[in-house]
């Protein structure tokens, strides 16, 4: 049974809509690790966060916006003339809008001088049943989801913010991996009545701040990344090698031992009914191809600067996705592309950076979506 009153959809966008802003998370390379850690702490019934990106070229719109800002600056600096023909200082010179023109123009220059990528961050959040009963009054909850990891992504101009929705049509967008690719309208509205574009324009080298595997010390605290019940079943009970690069085997890992201890309290995911789509889902350009990381490497050391900088090659002309699924205390990472050959290239690229790990095919509606469409057995 789907309970819409426990389900929220989200989109992460610029809080103040400064389109040229390039928010980033500090410390470097810890974004995904901290996001997973935050999910574990909040422990929703189900969370699905998509990072969808594509190479774009918004240079023309950026140039027009820069010209508009410079015109405003010139206007503000041109003295006004009063009734007695005496020059008078314009009040615009005291505005924050004027004071930040140069900073914004510099940001635009930085964007124009590099390859641009459009990044859409969107997702779904299902509250735990009991929280919804005790913590939320009534079926409509207007409070936004607090995800501090996103809100910590900032630069001198703007920061990220989570916008929440109740509209179930967002679910269609999530399943079809659609994100807003045409944000020209938001450029036109920038100085008139600013609206926040649902996608971010970033320089290609910024993408690695968001699309990355969990690395560093934080990985030692991420219990939701342990090998899943699926992996064990698929290997007929044999030791599942994971943590490629760490040299650890299943039996050696302290988290595996802890998981064994907690096994009795964990839900048996395989016993839940799987809801598969009746018809093949098409994206606007055709199929969307997805793979789930069967094992997530535990990399305790951050990538060196050279390897990290190679993440700027992540975007491609095809829409690609990097998805994080949190379902009953377990996190899975999915990658996808609108083209099957591009997906293979995407996989090879990630493996070349993070080391060897395996992928398995995943349905466009991830198998753990069963959580939101469970039958009415609980009632």
């Amino acid at each position, binding site marked *: 049974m789907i309970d819409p009153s426990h389900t929220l959809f989200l989109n992460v966008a610029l809080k103040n809509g400064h389109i040229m802003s390039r928010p980033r998370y500090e410390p470097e390379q810890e974004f995904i690790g901290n996001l997973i850690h935050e999910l574990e702490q909040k422990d929703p019934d189900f969370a699905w966060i998509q990072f969808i990106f594509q190479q774009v070229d918004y240079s023309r719109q950026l140039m027009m916006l820069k010209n508009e800002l410079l015109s405003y600056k010139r206007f503000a600096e041109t003295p006004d003339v009063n009734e007695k023909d005496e020059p008078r200082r314009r009040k615009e010179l005291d505005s924050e809008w004027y004071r930040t023109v140069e900073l914004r123009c510099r940001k635009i220059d930085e964007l124009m001088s590099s390859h641009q990528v459009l990044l859409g961050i969107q997702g779904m959040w299902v509250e735990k049943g009991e929280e919804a009963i005790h913590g939320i009054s009534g079926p409509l909850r207007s409070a936004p989801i607090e995800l501090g990891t996103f809100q910590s992504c900032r630069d001198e101009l703007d920061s990220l913010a989570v*916008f929440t929705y109740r509209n179930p049509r967002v679910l269609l967008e999530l399943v079809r991996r659609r994100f807003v690719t045409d944000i020209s309208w938001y450029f036109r509205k920038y100085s008139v009545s*600013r609206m926040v574009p649902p996608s971010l324009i970033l320089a290609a080298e910024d993408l690695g701040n968001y699309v990355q595997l969990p690395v560093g010390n934080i990985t030692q605290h991420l219990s939701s990344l342990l090998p899943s019940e699926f992996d064990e079943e698929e290997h007929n009970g044999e030791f599942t090698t994971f943590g490629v690069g760490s040299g650890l085997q299943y039996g050696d890992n302290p988290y595996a031992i802890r998981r064994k201890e907690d096994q009795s309290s964990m839900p048996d995911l395989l016993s839940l009914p799987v809801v598969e789509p009746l018809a093949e889902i098409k994206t606007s350009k055709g199929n969307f191809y997805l793979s789930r990381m069967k094992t997530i490497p535990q990399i305790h050391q951050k990538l060196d600067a050279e390897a990290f900088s190679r993440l700027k090659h992540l975007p491609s002309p095809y829409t690609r996705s990097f998805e994080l699924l949190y379902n009953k205390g377990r996190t899975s990472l999915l990658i996808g592309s609108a083209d099957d050959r591009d997906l293979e290239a995407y996989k090879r690229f990630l493996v070349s950076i993070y080391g060897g790990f395996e992928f398995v095919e995943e349905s466009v509606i991830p198998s753990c979506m069963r959580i939101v469409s469970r039958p009415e057995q609980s009632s």
Partner: protein
Amino acid sequence: MLEPILIVMYSPILQFFIIYLAAYRQELSRFLMPFHEHASTNEWRKVLKALGVEAILPEKGPEYGCNKRLILTFGITVILSVTIALTMVFVLQKTLQLPPLFRVALSILSQFIPATYCFAFISRWYLGPLPNPPKRMFLRYPRLGSRIRHLMEDD
């Protein structure tokens, strides 16, 4: 037959449009492209059908449908408008010494009260939040995000 001036004096229609033009002047098309959420159980049913997912939905979900509220608001607006109009007729009959232009203006202005009430409802439940003022560095938060402007209607 009703004179146009009487409609303006004793109904809040023109006043409603004046308030709309003033409030949404930066985005006049908002009336045609309202910015609000649809999250009824019926909407969920359509989405699940499009996805080919079979699931049971609760009979009563979060309802954003505002039919009952709309009828109630419309009723209150009419009552307010008629009450104010009758009060104005009564008051103006007693004060015949007032100049005619002033009497007309007073009647027109008084109809802004029901118009404002009706507009507040329409704005909240249909049109969506007011556009942001130009050249502001910081925008109000939390607020409704722009993502729902781009939800596909092709399913």
